[in-house]
């Protein structure tokens, strides 16, 4: 699995309220509309310009705050290929993987990648490539990788229930 796109780089403690504001959580339900509000209070240029495969690069504690899953799905619906960060807040991390969105904790790559540059992620070899070089990241556990490979937790559980 290869992911290639431009880097959108942000700082530390990017929280779920700026990724997907709480005021939309019970009323905005359509994919396109959820996508339109992505990063609304952080980077108003993002939703209109992001391209499929683009990679978000964050600092420490990316996705802190609410458990709202739209913080992950609003990025998936925009075609974001992966998130590379120094570290992730745990619920966001689960939500990303559970929606088939690779969340990679790799402090070296998160520091090296420059805004707007081309980034390639080889999910099978566990390597991130950017202008500054190659950065290895630790593989996910087999069961969690199974969830990502299935396209997310819902698909994974569907298959499991069907097989039972």
């Amino acid at each position, binding site marked *: 699995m290869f992911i290639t796109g431009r880097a959108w780089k942000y700082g530390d403690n990017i929280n779920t309220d700026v990724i997907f504001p*709480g005021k939309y959580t*019970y009323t905005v339900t359509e994919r396109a509309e959820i996508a339109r509000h992505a990063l609304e*209070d952080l980077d108003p240029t993002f939703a209109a310009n992001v391209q499929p495969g683009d990679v978000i690069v964050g600092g420490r*504690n990316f996705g802190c705050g609410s458990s709202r899953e739209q913080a992950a799905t609003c990025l998936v619906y925009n075609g974001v290929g992966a998130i590379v960060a120094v570290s992730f*807040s745990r*619920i966001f991390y689960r939500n990303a993987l*559970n929606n088939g969105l690779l969340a990679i904790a790799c402090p070296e790559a998160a520091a090296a990648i420059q805004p707007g540059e081309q980034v390639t992620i080889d999910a099978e070899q566990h390597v991130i490539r950017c202008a500054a070089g190659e950065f290895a990241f630790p593989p996910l556990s087999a069961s*969690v990788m199974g969830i990502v490979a299935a396209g997310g937790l819902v698909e994974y*559980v569907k298959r499991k*229930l069907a097989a039972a």
Partner: protein
Amino acid sequence: MSGQTFAQKALARAAGLDFVEVGQVVDARPDIVLSHDNTAAIRRIWQQFGQERVLIPDRIAITLDHAVPAPTTKHAQNHAEIRQFVQEQGIRHFFEVGRGICHQVLSEEAIVLPGQLILGADSHTTHFGWLGAFGAGIGRSEVATLWATGELWLRVPESMKIVLEGELPPGVTAKDFALRVIGDLGADGGLYMSVEFHGSGIEAMSLESRMVLPNMMAEFGAKNAWIAPDAKTVAYLEQRLKRRLEIGDWRLGAGTHSPLSSLQSLISNFQSLLSDADATYAAIHHYRAADLEPSIACPHSVDKVVPLSAVAGTRVQQAFLGTCTNGRLEDLAAAAEVIRGRRVAPGVRFLVIPASSEVLKAALERGYIQDFVEAGAVIGVPGCGPCMGNHMGIPAPGEVTISSANRNFRGRMGTADSEIYLANPAVVAATAVAGVIVDPREIGE
């Protein structure tokens, strides 16, 4: 073999294993799965599984609290869909609009017990550590998965120990302590960890004060947080369980320990789940209560913590007392004490929203609500209020709010161009009176 932490013991129990190691990934079976206004969205995910019935209805607890009563037609449709689901599935742990905030209500109803595992589609599910349970937030797809299969993967976390020695000085609260810890160690200081609170300062705290600590640890990156239950905890739960028995309201889930033969065995389960004295901790931090002072978290991050004196004089347009962090009776009591016989400052709105109907009733009985109304405050329906910007007190652009909540991210209360300061309840009330951030011990007549 060294001793085990609470997290190890609780997750071993929930996974049906004798022993688990830190870092191990287990398939855990929670005793209770929490959701709220997000239940309709979870139901739509769950329907993709093609099931007609959820696996165990009595393990599901649903509270309508995030936008109550419904502020718009869309919110009302959302609630209607949830009520339909509750009826269809025979879910008995359902709490209507106005009953209160999920974490407060499930605590009052003794639905979660010491040592049990509660997973919730709400980041502040860490709250239930106050009574010695393992509470952790999860996503909507995960709740749907639990409705369908009853189990979910969890990694056994490292543990951090925070020790508080001595009793808090007058005017200093559990909120100030929590803010101080987060300010010192950062919003990711407890990332992925099980945070345990120990020490004489914790033992001396009221139960309502203890509730603040695990609740706030969601802002510390913690997976869960934990306080050892003691006689006070047991008395609280026992009384509430007895009352439920008396009124025939026996709705406990079919957990690992069911059928539950006696209250005492139920509550004393936790004894075997206490952390061992020789358990291994990733870090241990010591605090002396006497060194603490009223603290404020400044916009737009909960770890931008300063002593109250550093921001005294900052003008506010709104003061908000409430939420799962600080909307309980002792919080209202502290605020009423400050505001009794005084008036809310011109140009300031003071919103008071009790965390539950039980809190509201007790505050009425004790005259606090009258104190607030006479001072010019606004009383809201028990629930989350404007905490996450749904309704009931959204600030205008450029306005400043002082709040007793747990989160002050940009846009949190619904307006990106506004600022939120977090403080303890007495400071919120004093600021409502003065119109500027002020130490309650320093306001004049």
